[in-house]
Structures are given as structure tokens and as C-alpha cells.
């Protein structure tokens, strides 16, 4: 139990409450999209699966695919290559160089993107141009990317979007610390749940109980999330300016090591399959690989695997591009192990929950979901305490709109992705997803504003979301996606699991609203907040 002076407690309460009122809704957007984005790769596999699951992410034959592609690009694009897996296990290889963007103010990657079928080695897609031109045309992986961009920077251009999410992360940090300081009985609060109808006390118990259990996790996410956003937005540029006097080359040399002396003489590349096998033999599954100066004497190859079982920190391997010799592990930063490098490497698994496969991701998803619930229940509690003040009812309506309208809009975006993939909708996939998302969000916003009773707003949005989740599965099947039998026999785990999750989620929401409709209201249905706070 924390004993604070009354004045300190009042300050903490003010910070907690007003912080939530100012940042709560946007924080909910960031937390909810981040929670779903934990499964971004699996969502991409679900939306665009191959006919059967792949046996290896980078199978034998990857070397041949890359050689075939390298022979098909302009020599300047052999400057850099990054290869990673995308939707369904397809292999994405981007041969590129750094050119000056059209505005002449910043460098932009320019090159050729290949998408390969990992089993046959066939080139499925080939796009050439600047990175933004290529991204506008490419399709695979865009659904997960759409979610991730909401989470990372709310689709606001850099660095403003990163600054915004960084400030939201800091506001979550304040909510965690002030919430912890205000807890008079931490252990008791974790179990106390007084059910007394729809009164403020039972709403408060629900909010406090969920937030108490979620506190350590929310703190970790707030810390790591604000680190990622603020580091990218201004911390790294600022520290590069001070510590290295603005000398970017010196910064890169310190972090990545001195590049080998320029030697453009042609040289035969060692077999990349052998390197990937070497990584596999060490118990790792390759996540992505990079090649600098393909086909030259000064070529460099690095392979970055997922963490092996029991490992928390990710690592990388360096290989001699001519002999294929394993040159050993690469620290995340610098040329030898260091505390700073380990701390940076630790941020990833702590934020993404990707260190133990489906198990850790499921735990991160559940805790993230609890965090989203805490945002909504906190805002609703705030309004509940001010029930007689009409002005605050607008916040309640906005809260309901966000709580249910955002997931509904995400379902609409996913539907647009599936329709574009099947050729029903014409045009680039990202603008289509934005249109569907925006239209759905606008409609639910209008609904939240015009429906007379707050209860009615919630019911319509919840039923729409329940139906939308079920309809998404039906749409996937109708548009020619693999059926459940073929998905199960083909080992397409993501398809089966996400279909079941969507159907269960939709059915649960519909059942919940059905039961609420049947039950007698616990209090008169008035225009002001009769929303069930404990089940937002």
C-alpha cells in the first residue's frame, strides 16, 4: 500500500484522469491496432495463403532464385539486397540502390522487387521503380502493413506520426505510474469486483481490476513503444548530431563497422543456401538476409534469424560472400557485445512478444486487449462520474464510436483487401483499404452522433461488428480462398485458426447483445450513459 500525501494523490488523480480524457481515445486506437498487429504476419498468411503451407521459410533453392533475379536487374541495383518472407511464406527480394528523390531533398531507395513462390522458385511478381512506386503496386502483406502503420504512426507522415505515438506512449507511462501510485491496496484491488448493477463503484472495480493485472505489461509497452517512436522521430538524429557532430558516416561506421574497401571487381558469390543451412543447423529459423554489393569482391552477406527456443535476444550472422565462411555472430549494434546493444535488442521481444512463437504472441495479444479495455472502461468511468453533465455525454458517444467503430472499420479494410485480391475491386490495394476504412468509420461516427439513446449506439455497432467478423470469413471463402478441409490438410494453420477466431468473436458479440436485449434493463434507459462499463 502506498501512503501518499493528500495533495500528491490529488495530483496523481488529475494526471490520470485528464491524461486519459485528452489522450485516451487515440491511445485506444494505438493499443487496439498494436494488439491485432501482434498477429500481422499470421493475418497476411490468412488473407493471401499459398495452396499449402511451406516447409521452410527460405528453402533449398533460395540461392538459385536470387541468382536468377540478380541477372535480371540493372547493375546499379545490385548495390543492396534485402530478402524476407511475406504473406503465405512467399519470398520478397528487393535489389536496390539509393537515389535522390524527385524533390531533391532526401535519398530514396530505387530498384526491382521480386516476389517468389518458395516451393517452385517461380517469379510471381516483378516491380521496378522507386520504393514508393513499388509499394503502391505491390499487394502481398499490405493488410498486415495497414494495421502496423496505424499502430506505429496512425498513418500520419514521419516524423509527426512517430512523435504523436511517442507522446501517446509517454501518456500511457503517466497513466501507469499515476494509476499505481493511487492504488491504495494493490493486492486487494487485483481481486475486488463488487457487482452492484450499473453503479459507479462496480464500474470502478472492473476498471481497477483489469488495470492492476495489466499494469506491468502496460508499463513495458509504454516504455518500449515510446522508445521506438521517439528514437525514430528525433532522438537518434539529435544524438547523431551531438555525439558525431552530424557525421552520419561516422555513426554508421561505429554501429555497423568499417565497410570493406571499395573493390568493384566482379567475384563469384558463395552459395546462400549453404549459409541458410548453417543458420538452421545452429537451431535458428531465418527471418531476413541482406547482401551488399552483390557479385563484387567487396560483397557482404548478413543473415538475421528469429530467436531460437529459450532465447530472448535476436542475433545476426555475418558470412564471407566469396567463401561462404561463417564469420560469427553480429551484435545488434557495434562490433563487439555491449550493454547498449543488448538493451536495444531487448526492446524488440518485449514490445512485439515474438520470442516464443504463437504462445508469447497469444499472451501479448490478450494483455494488449486488456489494455484496450482499460482505456475504454476508464473513459466510460470518467463520464459515469459526471452523468448529470450533458457535455460529457459527447465523450461517451465518441468512446463508443472508437470502441466499436474502429474494429468495424478494420474489418471493412480487410474486406476491401480480399475483394481487390480477387479482382472484384480494381485499383491499388492501399487506397481501397483506406476508402473502406474511412467510409465505415464515418458511417459509424454519424450513427454514434444521431442515434438518440447511447444504448442504441452500442447495440447497433456491436451487432454490426459481430456480423462483420462472421461475414469476413464467408467473404474469404466466397472469393476462392482455401476451404477449411483443404486448409487443414494443407497445414495452413493461420487460415484455420483465424477463421475460427473470427467466427467465435462474431458469435460471442451477437450472443452478448442478444442476451442484453432479453434481459430487463438494470436502470431506466435515459439519454445519458446507460452503457455497461464492465463489458465495453
Amino acid at each position: 500500500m502506498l501512503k501518499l500525501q493528500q495533495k500528491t494523490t490529488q495530483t496523481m488523480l488529475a494526471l490520470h484522469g485528464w491524461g486519459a480524457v485528452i489522450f485516451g481515445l487515440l491511445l485506444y486506437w494505438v493499443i487496439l491496432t498494436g494488439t491485432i498487429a501482434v498477429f500481422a504476419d499470421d493475418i497476411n498468411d490468412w488473407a493471401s495463403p499459398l495452396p499449402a503451407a511451406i516447409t521452410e521459410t527460405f528453402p533449398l533453392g533460395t540461392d538459385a532464385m536470387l541468382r536468377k533475379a540478380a541477372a535480371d536487374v540493372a547493375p546499379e541495383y545490385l548495390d543492396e539486397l534485402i530478402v524476407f518472407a511475406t504473406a503465405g511464406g512467399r519470398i520478397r527480394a528487393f535489389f536496390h540502390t539509393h537515389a535522390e528523390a524527385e524533390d531533391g531533398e532526401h535519398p530514396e531507395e530505387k530498384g526491382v522487387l521480386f516476389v517468389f513462390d518458395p516451393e517452385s522458385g517461380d517469379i510471381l511478381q516483378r516491380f521496378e521503380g522507386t520504393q514508393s512506386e513499388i509499394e503502391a503496386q505491390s499487394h502481398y502483406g499490405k493488410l498486415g502493413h495497414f494495421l502496423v502503420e496505424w499502430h506505429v504512426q496512425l498513418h500520419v507522415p514521419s516524423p509527426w506520426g512517430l512523435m504523436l505515438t511517442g507522446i501517446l506512449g509517454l501518456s500511457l507511462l503517466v497513466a501507469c505510474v499515476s494509476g499505481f501510485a493511487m492504488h491504495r491496496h494493490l493486492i486487494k484491488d487485483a481481486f475486488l469486483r463488487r457487482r452492484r448493477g450499473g453503479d459507479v463503484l462496480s464500474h470502478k472495480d472492473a476498471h481497477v481490476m483489469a488495470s492492476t493485472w495489466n499494469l506491468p505489461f502496460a508499463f513495458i509497452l509504454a516504455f518500449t513503444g515510446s522508445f521506438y517512436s521517439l528514437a525514430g522521430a528525433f532522438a537518434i538524429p539529435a544524438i547523431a548530431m551531438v555525439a558525431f557532430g552530424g557525421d552520419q558516416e561516422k555513426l554508421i561506421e561505429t554501429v555497423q563497422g568499417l565497410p570493406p574497401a571499395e573493390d568493384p571487381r566482379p567475384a563469384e558469390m558463395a552459395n546462400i543456401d549453404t549459409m541458410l543451412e548453417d543458420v538452421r543447423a545452429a537451431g535458428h529459423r531465418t527471418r531476413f538476409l541482406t547482401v551488399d554489393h552483390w557479385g563484387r569482391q567487396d560483397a557482404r552477406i548478413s543473415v538475421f534469424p528469429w530467436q531460437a527456443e529459450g532465447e530472448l535476444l535476436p542475433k545476426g550472422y555475418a558470412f564471407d560472400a566469396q567463401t561462404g565462411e561463417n564469420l560469427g555472430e553480429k551484435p545488434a549494434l557495434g562490433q563487439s557485445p555491449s550493454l547498449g546493444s543488448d538493451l536495444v535488442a531487448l526492446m524488440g521481444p518485449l514490445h512485439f512478444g515474438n520470442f516464443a512463437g504463437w504462445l508469447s504472441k497469444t499472451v501479448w495479444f490478450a494483455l494488449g486487449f486488456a489494455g484496450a479495455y482499460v482505456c475504454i472502461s476508464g473513459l466510460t468511468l470518467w463520464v459515469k462520474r459526471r452523468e448529470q453533465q450533458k457535455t460529457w455525454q459527447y465523450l461517451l458517444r465518441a468512446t463508443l464510436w472508437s470502441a466499436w467503430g474502429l474494429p468495424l472499420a478494420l474489418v471493412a479494410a480487410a474486406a476491401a483487401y480480399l475483394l481487390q485480391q480477387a479482382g472484384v475491386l480494381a485499383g491499388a490495394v492501399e487506397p481501397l483499404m483506406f476508402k473502406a476504412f474511412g467510409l465505415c468509420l464515418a458511417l459509424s461516427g454519424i450513427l454514434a452522433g444521431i442515434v438518440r439513446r447511447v444504448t442504441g449506439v452500442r447495440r447497433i455497432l456491436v451487432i454490426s461488428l459481430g456480423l462483420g467478423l462472421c461475414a469476413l470469413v464467408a467473404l474469404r471463402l466466397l472469393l476462392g480462398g482455401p476451404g477449411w478441409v483443404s486448409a487443414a490438410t494443407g497445414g495452413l494453420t493461420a487460415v484455420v485458426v483465424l477463421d475460427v477466431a473470427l467466427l467465435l468473436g462474431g458469435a460471442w458479440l451477437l450472443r452478448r447483445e442478444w442476451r442484453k436485449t432479453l434481459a430487463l434493463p438494470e436502470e431506466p434507459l435515459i439519454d445519458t450513459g446507460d452503457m455497461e462499463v464492465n463489458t465495453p
Partner: protein
Amino acid sequence: MAGTRTEKIWRFVLAGPLVLLATLIIMAGSSLWLPEGQAQVNNFVIPVVLLPAIWAVLFFYSVLDRLGRASVVIFILTAVHAALIAQHLLQAQQ
């Protein structure tokens, strides 16, 4: 956070934009006195990693302590680091 209207406004400015600016300056300045370590990265990586912690400490201090003392302490910390940065950049130019 009781006080006159002027005090409230100053507290808001201090805890909001000024603490954010102080965090940036202290973080960047720390890279000049923290040890580099064998890999020569600790001095500039650790302040970036600890950025949220630096901000949180300054923020809560700015809202919980007496306004005058909090302002002076944060100003001194910021000024010392700003001076370190200025000295370093001037030396680099020469």
C-alpha cells in the same frame, strides 16, 4: 497542483513542452559524459533507450515538487547539458 492562475500556466508549460525539450537536451548531452564501453556505442545508445525514463522522472518531478525548486533544478540540469553540447560542437568546428 494548487496555486495562482500564473503558477498553473507555468506548471503546465514546465511539465509539457519544457520537460520534453529538457529531455532531448539531457539525452543528447549525456552521450558526451557516459562511458563508451568496448564497443564504443554505450554512450549514445543508453541515453536513447532511457529516453522515456528520463522524461518520466523530469515530468513527475515537475508536477510534484514545489514549482520554483522544480523549475530551477530542471533548468540547471538542462543548462549543464546544453553547455556540454555547445562546447563539444565548438571544439568540433575548430
